[in-house]
């Protein structure tokens, strides 16, 4: 929120510098996001008195002698209003002012004034326009003239122009936390400033004298849930004209354009007191009434900015006897707009339910300063105060007659302070320190809480605008933010009980899996939990694939982030492709994250969040088996064995893909990504991807590791070269070998041969088989018998022969 220091000074005597004030505000909870001096770009510009002024023939220039307070300077000036005997801003040599474009209006940066020469005449400075000083017509009357800015005759020659033009003012942009809507105004901030500086706050003048005139008019509220308070006041004899300079200047400082006195009063009160106000042209209110009600479905209104809206039952409207005349809290209707011809107005100061205004504003896509303010919360205290202030301003500006027709519909909420009694011990218990009673009293008095202390009991009066004050905790915060957080002394929970801490089994296991993959040369990546419908298309998944049954976001940022992911594969493929585009042509990535499966859509209960592992490897030197190596790293980390069976998937190479199972249950997949997908993503090198359902393995997390005693007798090794049909898999052969002999503890493949030395359609697999003895030393006979058992089983099952 923008707060000019000069405006703040209306309500508090500020005797600290702008920097000190920023520091004070920061310490009590109001961060100044930006602070700037209005004329921070302007320097060395003084009041200059033009002593003489002669036209330079054949040019538009005048040659002037200008008194700068200590000497007379020769200055060439091109403005048409340069006049001897008048005072103008004089930029001395070395001064900084705004540079303007040829139109003399558009600012094009800051320039430093040097000694110049125009048409052969030396010029020792420059007389300035309002634009060159960054001063608009609203900020200083006459500044908008396309020529020199004329200073008052009584301005002291040689004095700095900044105080005269208000350029020495500061604007604070203050961030207000959501619990303090009462500080969303200049006066609200003034209350805090007064408290933190230990000063009195001066209430704006709320006085006015009702004329005694009354009108026959009626105000009703049909939707009190959305409008707890509605007040209106009739003002006659309105004369629409420009607001006075001081008001226009203030509005300009807070970024609000001056329009006309009545509209400016509503905006001024909004900025000053934080209460949105509206003024209706009374002549357009038909039927002698205002009614606040929900809109009918399909009802239409055209707002001041000439946009038409079709409304619903959820929108609140202000109506006259016939039609909506305003979109409550958001914007007035075009049909009752204040015009130059307006001669009577009805002021509105109301409290609307903040949630309703916020929702309507969002749903309709229509916002204003007023709706933004309502969405933060308005208190009824300000509603009452604002109406009085507006009526006072009518009188102060002399632009209308305040009638005695005041209307107030309310739900009976009091704007009087309420009492709260808390225990000082409890307040200090929250903080962990003892704040001296005198300090408590001083702080709470400064914040207008009128504290009364009786033993341990602290009773405060909560002003109506402090809707956030509910308990001893709130009191503790008020005290400590003024007392200073530097008083908090670190302690390490001396009263707390000892608790065991650390990772759970599942968390330790996740970490173990991750570390096992890192050891295998893979880097951990993290991808968004949501993805795109096109990601499912990329995988060529059929319409009835379970992955297609994804949970949708109602309000996604865009379609590409609109589904909760049901597979980690597409983002992994995309990551591998992206790396290639950026010049990394090989690598290993894994992600451990959730997939989301709904039991039904739309969601009625918590969905299944399945912790899932995805591994991607890419590069010319990578293959199916290097990926399989990483998958085996996972199995090793969990101390289990996976089984692999060839299986086709819509997105994987049909000859290089497999289902991964544990204990007979399919828990994942792996394989080479389709060439078509690689082409689609401009991926140059082969990509391989695996996905494992880690949650499905939860049951074996923490599997107990048992030491197997070393064999007492020597192990025996036999190499077996086996010939078989090409179609028989190594996995099948290995299983048969292991099953055939109880002594087999390790089967390792060391050679594969296909070629001329074998019959067509055959291949040879050579295994090294390790036999581990039990209680007896092996004899050749025993081993030979075991080998025969193995060969017999292989022959029976797959017609495998020993290679001769």
């Amino acid at each position, binding site marked *: 929120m923008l707060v000019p220091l000069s405006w703040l000074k209306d309500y508090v005597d500020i005797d600290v510098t702008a920097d000190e004030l920023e520091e004070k505000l920061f310490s009590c909870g109001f961060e100044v996001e930006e602070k700037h001096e209005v004329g921070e770009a302007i320097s060395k510009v003084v009041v200059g008195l033009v002593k003489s002024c002669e036209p330079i023939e054949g040019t538009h220039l005048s040659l002037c002698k200008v008194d700068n307070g200590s000497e007379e300077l020769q200055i060439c000036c091109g403005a048409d209003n340069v006049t001897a005997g008048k005072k103008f801003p004089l930029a001395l040599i070395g001064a900084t002012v705004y540079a303007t474009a040829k139109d003399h209006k558009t600012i094009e940066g800051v320039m430093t004034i040097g000694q110049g020469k125009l048409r052969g005449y030396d010029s020792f400075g420059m007389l300035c326009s309002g634009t060159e000083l960054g001063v608009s017509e609203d900020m200083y009357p006459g500044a908008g003239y396309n020529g020199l800015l004329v200073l008052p005759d009584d301005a002291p020659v040689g004095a700095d122009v900044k105080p005269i033009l208000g350029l020495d003012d500061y604007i604070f942009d203050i961030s207000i936390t959501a619990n303090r809507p009462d500080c969303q105004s200049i006066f609200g901030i003034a209350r805090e400033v007064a408290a933190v500086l230990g000063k009195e706050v001066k209430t704006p003048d709320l006085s006015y004298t009702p004329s005694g005139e009354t009108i026959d008019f009626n105000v009703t509220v049909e939707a009190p849930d959305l409008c707890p308070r509605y007040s209106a006041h009739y003002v006659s004899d309105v004369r629409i004209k420009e607001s006075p300079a001081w008001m226009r200047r203030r509005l300009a400082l807070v970024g609000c354009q001056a329009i006309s006195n009545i509209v400016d009063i509503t905006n001024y009160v909004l900025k000053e007191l934080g209460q949105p106000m509206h003024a209706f042209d009374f002549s357009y209110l038909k039927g002698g009434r205002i009614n606040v009600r929900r809109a009918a479905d399909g009802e239409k209104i055209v707002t001041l900015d000439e946009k038409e809206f079709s409304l619903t039952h959820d929108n609140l409207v202000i109506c006259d006897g016939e039609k909506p005349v305003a979109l409550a809290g958001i914007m007035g209707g075009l049909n009752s707009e204040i015009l130059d011809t307006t001669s009577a107005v009805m002021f509105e100061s109301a409290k609307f339910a903040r949630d309703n205004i916020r929702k309507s504003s969002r749903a309709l896509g229509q916002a204003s300063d007023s709706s933004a303010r309502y*969405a933060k919360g308005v208190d009824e205290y300000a509603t009452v105060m604002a109406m009085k202030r507006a009526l006072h301003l009518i009188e102060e500006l002399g632009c209308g007659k305040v009638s005695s027709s005041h209307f107030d519909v309310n739900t009976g909420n009091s704007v009087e302070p309420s009492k709260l009694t808390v225990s000082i011990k409890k307040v200090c218990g929250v903080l*962990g320190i003892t704040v001296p009673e005198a300090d408590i009293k001083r702080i709470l008095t400064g914040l207008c809480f009128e504290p009364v202390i009786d033993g341990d009991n602290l009773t405060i009066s909560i002003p109506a605008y402090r809707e956030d004050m509910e308990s001893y905790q709130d009191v503790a915060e008020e005290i400590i933010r003024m007392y200073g957080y530097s008083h908090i002394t670190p302690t390490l929970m001396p009263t707390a009980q000892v608790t065991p801490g650390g990772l759970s089994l599942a968390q330790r296991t996740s970490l173990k899996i991750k570390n096992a993959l890192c050891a295998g040369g893979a880097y*951990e990546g993290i*991808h968004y*939990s*949501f993805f795109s419908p096109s990601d499912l298309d990329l995988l060529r998944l059929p319409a009835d694939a379970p992955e297609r049954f994804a*949970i949708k976001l109602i309000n996604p940022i865009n379609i590409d982030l609109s589904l909760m992911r049901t597979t980690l594969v597409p983002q*992994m493929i995309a990551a591998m492709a992206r790396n290639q585009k950026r010049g*990394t042509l090989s690598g290993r*990535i894994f992600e451990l994250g959730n997939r989301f499966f709904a039991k039904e859509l739309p969601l009625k209960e918590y969905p299944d969040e399945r912790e899932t592992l995805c591994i991607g490897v890419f590069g010319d030197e990578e293959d199916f088996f290097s990926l399989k190596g990483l998958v085996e790293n996972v199995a090793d980390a969990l101390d289990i064995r996976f089984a692999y069976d060839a299986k086709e998937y819509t997105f994987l190479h049909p000859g290089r893909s497999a289902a991964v199972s544990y204990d007979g249950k399919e828990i994942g997949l792996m394989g080479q990504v389709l060439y078509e997908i690689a082409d689609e993503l401009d991926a140059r090198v082969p990509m391989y991807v695996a996905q494992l359902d880690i949650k499905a393995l939860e049951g074996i997390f923490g599997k107990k590791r048992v030491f197997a005693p070393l064999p007492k007798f020597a192990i025996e090794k036999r190499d077996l070269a086996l010939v078989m049909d090409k179609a028989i898999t190594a996995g099948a052969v290995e299983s048969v070998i292991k099953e055939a002999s109880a002594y087999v503890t390790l089967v390792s493949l060391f050679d594969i041969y296909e070629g001329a030395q074998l019959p067509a359609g055959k291949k040879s697999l050579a295994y090294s088989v390790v036999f581990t003895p039990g209680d007896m030393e092996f004899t050749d006979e025993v081993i030979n018998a075991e080998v025969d058992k193995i060969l017999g089983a292989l022959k029976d099952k797959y017609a495998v022969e020993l290679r001769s």
Partner: protein
Amino acid sequence: MDMNELTAKLSAIKDEVLADIKDLASSKSVYEYKKGIMDPKAGKIGTLMREMGKIPNELKAEYGKAVNEIKNWAAERFDELDAKLKEAEMRARYDSEKIDVTLPAKKQVKGNLHPNTQVRNQIVDIFGSMGFEIYEGTEIETDHYNFTALNTPADHPARDMQDTFYLSPEFLLRTQTSAGQIHVMENKKPPIKIISPGKVFRSDDDATHSPMFTQMEGLVVDKGITLCDLNGMLDEFVTKIFGAGTRTRLRPSYFPFTEPSVEVDVSCFECGGKGCRLCKGTGWIEVLGAGVVNKKVLEGCGIDSDVYSGFAFGIGIERIAMLKYGINNIKMLFESDLRVLSQIDD
């Protein structure tokens, strides 16, 4: 054979050996020569013992002694020569095997954890050792747990602080790991000490915001817990994560579920608080939000606020990672760019 003959013979052998070994140039040829001359069947010295049978009995002892003597003499000569040659050979070998030590290393394949996980692990270590359990909630939450139970009812202005992704009128993507607090407090009686790391989601997508990021919520509920305890624990935390000498500064803020609420700044670990680019000249860096748990939240979970109190804090994991490692763009953390991931192995 008499002794004179024998002496002459042995002397001749000695001369012969001395002459022969002069020409030997490698330890291998010494070995071969030695093997040849000592061979019990064919060697000049090796066969001497076999002559014993031809020696008269009275000379046998003397003969044996002389043969042993020459054996020892020969062995000594060979050892001497062998040692000398071996030394030269090793020197030559070392010379020939000299390498350029500046050639590139043969590296093991390596990978590492995501910077977020590394930071998370560090934080978990710190709090785990202080008796905090790690509770991971769900990414999909209900409006109740994410907002209402955290003292943020439907019309609360604080809801505007967070743009929420909704999945249904009731379910949403959690906007804060604070949602986990309520589940914990509903299911566990004090003393409670948890940290709750996890992904959170907000409808913000620009240069400095990612729609998904990671938070770590901390919660302590026990008897007599105060703001001073919060401060003390955060001091411990920041010195462990950012280094000794790091100081904290609390300043007032607002969160619906804590009261008082504070923003916590740490003294800039880059410049030590003097003011630099990292801290934008202020000497302080904002790192987390915290506060004393609002009694309404405790009471909503059935915890007696007259007996128990607590504090909560929320840390942005990416923020810590970015600060610690100097990563300047949050989006980089979610792109799995190996040029990025491989740089940080803390």
